[in-house]
């Protein structure tokens, strides 16, 4: 069983793509970072919360045939690196999609889906996946 707290503390990022932005250099970070690796000391105290765009385009993708146990019911399933409309690359699953019609450049949007669960009696983990943008 994975740690309940570990998943819980990531809820803002997992549910709502909450990242951060360095007001010193303008860089957007997802997942959120409190320390700007570009500005380092100059960015201390200037990294603020930032909501990453929930729409974007497929930058690259793959259809997974050998899946982790938690995703057995989903396989084969697609994953994508999505470039959000504000330029952030996010790796996630791409669901509700015709696997043979995925293309680089395809518009997608983030939805909330089940990622996995700690067995039949443990906590269910929810997080973002992408779907084709209707």
């Amino acid at each position, binding site marked *: 069983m994975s740690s309940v707290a570990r998943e819980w503390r990531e809820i803002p990022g997992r549910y709502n793509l909450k990242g951060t932005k360095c007001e010193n250099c303008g860089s957007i970070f997802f997942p959120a970072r409190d320390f700007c690796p570009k500005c380092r000391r100059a960015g201390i105290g200037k990294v603020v919360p930032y909501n990453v765009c929930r729409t974007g385009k497929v930058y690259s993708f793959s259809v997974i045939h050998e899946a982790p146990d938690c995703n057995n019911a*989903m396989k084969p399933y697609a994953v994508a690196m999505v470039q959000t409309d504000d330029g952030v690359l996010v790796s996630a*699953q791409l669901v509700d999609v015709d696997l043979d019609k995925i293309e680089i450049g395809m518009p997608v949007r983030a939805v909330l889906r089940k990622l996995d669960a700690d067995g039949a009696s443990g906590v*269910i983990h*929810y997080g973002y996946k992408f779907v084709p943008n*209707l």
Partner: protein
Amino acid sequence: MMDVGIVSYGAYVPRYRIKPEEIGKIWGVDGKGMGKGLMIYQKSVPSPDEDVVTIATEAARYMMARVPEVNPQDIGAIYVGSESHPYAVKPTSTIVAEAIEATPAMTAADMEFACKAGTAGIQACMGLVGSGMVKYGVAIGADTSQGAPGDALEYSASAGGAAYLIGTEKVIAKINKTLSFTTDTPDFWRREGQPYPLHGGRFTGEPAYFRHITSAAKMMFEAMGTTAQDYKYAVFHQPNGKFPTRVAGQLGFAPEQIEYGLLTPNIGNTYSGAVPLGLANVLDHAEPGDRIFVTSYGSGAGSDAFDITVTDEILNYKRDNAPVLEKVMADPVYIDYGMYAKFKGKIIMSE
């Protein structure tokens, strides 16, 4: 009480479908004939990564997308009605609340009243909003209902949900009145820890569905001094296509009045999502001045009736900020029973 109504709404149905003939094939039943009798020609199936939390969240996000001027922090209450909450203990509503960024200064609870938990949530929100206790309330009806393999319910139990933002400002549909008719009638139930519900067979008809809906509807007609002819649209609970069609006729409604509000023939019985989804599809088509008659039904048993008038505000409403139901339901993917069994977790997997 202030005037209270619907400020926004959002509706979502999973993409997958199965047809009754495919189910019947497995159980040696004339599924097509059964579907025809029930007036259910296909039903929605949730993806393995969908449940009431994700369906309710998607509907709620559509709802919020259409009112970008509403600050989610002004939502004071969220109620999610369902009979298939993913947790027996641990609310669905808190997850949805987090996902639309309405937390933490708010109240939340999960509701259960068989197929009418969604409309019960609307009533609860009306009370809170109308009394001034909260600025906005969110009521969601959503289900990923289970029918036991081979049982009649397997041909109908489906998945979907709709969310309603209840408030007093910029109301697109004013709720003129709501009332309920409630008795202790055990026509359908699921005991704690049991995976599938049981039902009273034909007992679910006359003493249950029909008695409660017609009683609530007649109480509404009487209270409002109206008849079926005063409404442009009507939405009834729809465990199948047959019951609402018959009850509409009994109450004097013409088939075209229930057309938009009757989705079960195409998506199956979405339980707590059924009336909220039917109403959403009506609102997708509604114009100012349209009057809508709504009566839900929940086994156990009770009916909530609503008398609603669409306002001029719907002309300013940003409905296109999220997909309308026809768009959500377009492009379905049909699956066979094997895939259905896998999606619904009916196959015993190794640990």
